[in-house]
């Protein structure tokens, strides 16, 4: 997967250098307002960010965010479903104007596209019912924690947890969730969108956040050299944060309030 993603990035960078040469002078925000359409790359199979609801329409945090930005610019929204591999090439080749697809920031991506301010929290952490008092990794002593074997959370947790913590490793995400829900483990170590998905099902044992292992919030992806569009998106995000809209999206889709330090 790593090599493949790497390959995608290189390909994307190559394509970008070809297309951006011709588009560098064009002001995308100007094009959007003229055409009256904002084109956004969104996920379609990634709850709770973007997924098809019972009414066959796309819904989720990213979908609401896309709708909000289109509405604030005052144009129609046109959503393009993308995967995590092809979303950056879609932006670079000008097929979409923005990526709103739970996109995290990293140096490799920052070389080829620009990022807005963060619009959604995303983190991995330890979760468990309210009755269990855990605030730091040291509190895990003597507790049992379910985690999916070999993933990022497993590696981080194994380093942090005291020796007396029982880390129960399962083969896949579903078994990890089942182990926690059925009470086979006291706590679960996973990411915030997995627990949001669990919470949406009204489980018998609710995974509430105990502490954060690693935070990597989501950003809107914008092509390079689009200061007007970037500024507009940032203004919309800042306003949404100030008026509680982001908090509402968090409550709806991530089943938790917007973190205080966001």
């Amino acid at each position, binding site marked *: 997967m790593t090599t493949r993603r790497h390959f995608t990035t290189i390909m994307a960078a190559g394509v970008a250098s070809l297309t951006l040469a011709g588009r560098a002078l064009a002001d995308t925000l100007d094009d959007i307002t003229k055409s009256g359409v904002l084109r956004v790359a969104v996920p379609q199979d990634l709850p709770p960010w973007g997924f098809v609801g019972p009414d066959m329409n796309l819904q989720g945090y990213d979908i609401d965010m896309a709708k909000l930005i289109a509405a604030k610019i005052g144009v129609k929204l046109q959503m393009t479903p993308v995967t995590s591999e092809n979303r950056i090439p879609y932006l670079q080749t000008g097929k979409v104007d923005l990526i709103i697809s739970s996109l995290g920031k990293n140096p490799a991506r920052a070389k080829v596209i620009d990022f807005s301010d963060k619009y959604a929290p995303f983190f991995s952490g330890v979760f468990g019912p309210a009755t269990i008092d855990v605030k730091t990794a040291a509190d895990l002593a003597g507790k049992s924690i379910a985690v999916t074997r070999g993933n990022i959370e497993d590696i981080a947790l194994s380093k942090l947890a005291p020796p007396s913590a029982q880390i129960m490793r399962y083969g896949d995400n579903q078994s990890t969730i089942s182990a926690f829900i*059925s009470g086979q483990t006291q706590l679960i170590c996973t990411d915030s969108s997995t627990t949001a998905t669990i919470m949406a099902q009204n489980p018998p044992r609710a995974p509430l956040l105990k502490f954060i292992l690693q935070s990597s919030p989501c950003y809107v992806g914008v092509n390079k050299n689009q200061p007007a569009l970037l500024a507009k998106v940032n203004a919309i995000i800042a306003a949404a944060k100030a008026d509680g809209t982001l908090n509402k999206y968090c409550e709806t889709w991530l089943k938790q309030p917007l973190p205080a330090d966001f």
Partner: protein
Amino acid sequence: MTYQFDFGAIIGYWPMMLHGIAITAELTLFGTALGIAVAVLGGWARTSGKLWLNLPVTVYVELIRNTPFIVQLFFIFFGLPALGLRLDAVDASILAMVVNLGAYGTEIVRAGLMATPRGQVEAGASLGLSKPQIFWYIVLAPSLARIWPALASQVVIVMLGSSVCSQISVQELTYVASYIQSRSFRAFEAYFVVTALYLVLALALRQALLAAGRHLFKGVQAR
């Protein structure tokens, strides 16, 4: 092929592997001992000629032999807590193995019991042996001697099947292999070593069981 084999990268995990072997052996020991006991009772019930004994055992045997082991294991581990019975991963695994071996073993034991010639039972009766004595010396012991190799094979299958228990976080040999490869990214080396360990364990287990059979059934006429 550009892959550089590096068994040195996983050699540091040998204490984990020993631990994995110990857990696999523990599962197999308890699973086998209790499983064979269930199998003998089940085989007896199925040949007893009493419907109220035969029917529930038949349902049990068919239920277990026609569903996958991993589903039985998940049901016990993830499902039973909903009914208030919460077993830890090792206990759940042993229970699943006992239930599984019990069902397959019932059919093997039944085959042995049914192969007892009627004339031998009559001979025992005419010698004045009591009913329990007839069952023990004339029916059961020769039957077990007869089916012992088949039962040994089934025990080896159950031992190898315990690899599935890694899915519910039992730290047996397969779990150790998955753990090592998730940390060292040396999948070939990890699984190669564990494959070899399973092979040695299975061959040793079969030989041990056959030797135990020779000892247990010394002087028992199998045919």
